[in-house]
């Protein structure tokens, strides 16, 4: 045997050692990736006043950054319906989504719902309202035919899906001929002001925004009539990409769910205008998905002005 040529045992030993090194290098990859995660980029759906909204979310992001040891950055998605496109284009790690966009994102992007904020009124849910001016003479679904309608955005449950489903159940077969005109205002508050001004006869918006506006200006309640309301759905849900390191995902959920149990967390919650976070429930979105399927036949893309 040549002294320089390795024995079979030696070859096996080297091969084993190489395999072991390879395994050692390969096995902790996710952990290494987690350690190397420098930032989390979270999207926000735009509300009526995006400056106030950013201010609210900034305090939350700062708290999360501090607790997770990862910089949490925020970006506003240009409009409700953009969530799927923007998620891919911006390579977002997660987003605070309203009920219908969360449903779409769970379906199309396989996002995982993590937590819902509980509002100052103790609710983590919202419901859709169909609103008219009290002096409009509109009292029920049949009076809406031939009127001008304002929706929030085609990607909202309270501001689009619910009114369509409600009217479909009351005989609407084609929204293009049912309304004299329809448009999308882009925000729930804007829908309420549009109906108040008479720029549309009927509007659909969520109750939490309506309640907030009424609290600021009680005259709004004197002028508007709620003629229908939807079941409750999660108002906002933090949904996360399922490719994100499970350790970080768990940490994020834990930090959010325990936020109300420490002083800095409570301070951030106050600035965020929430009482606490609660665990999200995937089953909530199944029901919204069913509503979307049911309303599909009357839905038409684009507005008719």
């Amino acid at each position, binding site marked *: 045997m040549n002294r320089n040529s390795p024995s079979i045992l030696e070859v096996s030993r080297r091969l084993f050692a190489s395999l072991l090194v390879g395994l050692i290098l390969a096995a902790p990859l996710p952990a290494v990736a987690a350690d190397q995660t420098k930032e989390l980029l979270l999207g926000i759906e735009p509300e*009526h*006043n*995006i400056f106030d909204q950013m201010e609210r979310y900034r305090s939350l992001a700062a708290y999360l950054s501090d607790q997770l040891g990862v910089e949490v950055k925020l970006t506003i998605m240009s409009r409700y319906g953009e969530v799927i496109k923007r998620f891919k284009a911006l390579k977002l790690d997660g987003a605070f989504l309203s009920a219908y966009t969360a449903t779409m994102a769970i379906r199309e992007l396989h996002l995982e719902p993590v937590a819902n904020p509980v509002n100052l009124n103790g609710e983590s849910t919202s419901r859709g309202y169909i609103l008219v*001016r009290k*002096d*409009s003479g509109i009292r029920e679904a049949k009076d809406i035919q031939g009127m*001008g309608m304002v929706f929030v955005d085609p990607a909202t449950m309270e501001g689009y899906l619910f009114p369509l489903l409600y009217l479909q159940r009351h005989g609407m077969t084609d929204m293009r001929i049912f309304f004299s005109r329809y448009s999308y*205002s*882009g*925000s729930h*508050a*804007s829908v309420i*002001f*549009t109906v*108040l*001004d*008479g*720029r549309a*006869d009927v509007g659909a918006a969520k109750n939490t925004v309506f309640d907030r506006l009424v609290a600021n*200006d009680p*005259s709004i309640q004197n*002028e508007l009539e709620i003629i229908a309301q939807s079941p409750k759905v999660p108002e906002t849900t933090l949904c996360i990409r399922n490719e994100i390191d499970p350790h970080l995902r768990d940490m994020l959920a834990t930090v959010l769910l325990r936020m109300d149990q420490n002083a800095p967390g409570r301070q951030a919650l106050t600035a965020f205008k929430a009482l606490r976070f609660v665990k999200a429930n995937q089953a909530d979105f199944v029901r919204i998905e069913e509503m979307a399927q049911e309303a599909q036949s009357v839905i038409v893309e684009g507005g008719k002005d």
Partner: protein
Amino acid sequence: MNTWHRLLCRLLVSVLLLLAAAPDAHADKRIGVIMTGDIPYYGAIHQTFVAELHKRFGGGEKFEIFLQRPFPNPISWTNAARKLIAFDVDLIVTYGAPATQAVIHEKSRIPLVYAGLYEPDLAVTSGKGVTGCGFKIPMSSIIRYLKRLKPVNSLGIIFSSIEEDSVRQCKTMQELAEQQGIKAVGIDIRSQADLAQLKNVQTDAVSITGSSLVHLWLTDILSILEKARIPAADIFPDEMASGVLMTLYQPAHSQGQMAAEMGARILLGVEPGSIAPHTFRDTELVFNLVASRHLGITVPIHLLIEATKVIE
């Protein structure tokens, strides 16, 4: 030819002559219109009214319009109404409450169609031969927008006590302002001399009612208010972009169209009493950013996106 034949021939010739001479159903109709002053809002209603009538009558010269433009005061309105009644027109059309009420007061048998009336169901517009259309603006929205533009603790309301609908709007606005803890001050304009009192106005904002007299001097009013840096809101469109910061108004064309439709039906023989009056409630919201710059007010982006139109 015997006597019977001659008589029959004469009868036939007479019938033929009568048929030839008879006008078609709505040829040579005379329409009297009272449009107070040169108020652009009424002008826009009238423009649509005329265009729509031409469309309905096939573009031929089958009607003639006698346009009266009285100065906004009771004597001029009465004179304009009497003149049209003396002309024995087939239809009178009025824009705004005072002109309408002046015609109704004369108790003429000539049918009347009104337009541009604020809350016509509350105005005195009843009468056998009277119908028409008007509008309603949610006055509370004006207060709401002004409050979103700047803190408003006091509100001046410019009105004219010689115009019933302007008085009504002023009262509504006062009630709404008081409900919100805003001190409301009525500023009555009855003549040009009354504009001087605007120099002493110190309210946070001003709301302008749909008075024709007030709108006659709108440019002067806005010039005084701008010097005092007081923003103004109006329920008539600021067609000339003369400096109203915010307008919430009912578009004129729909009223012009409906007035023409009603007028055409009446000229074709339909009883005015059988045509139901209509109140338009749709509105347009306009912000004037040139005015906002002069006043040193920033219109927030979330208000701008509400607007139907932005003047830059």
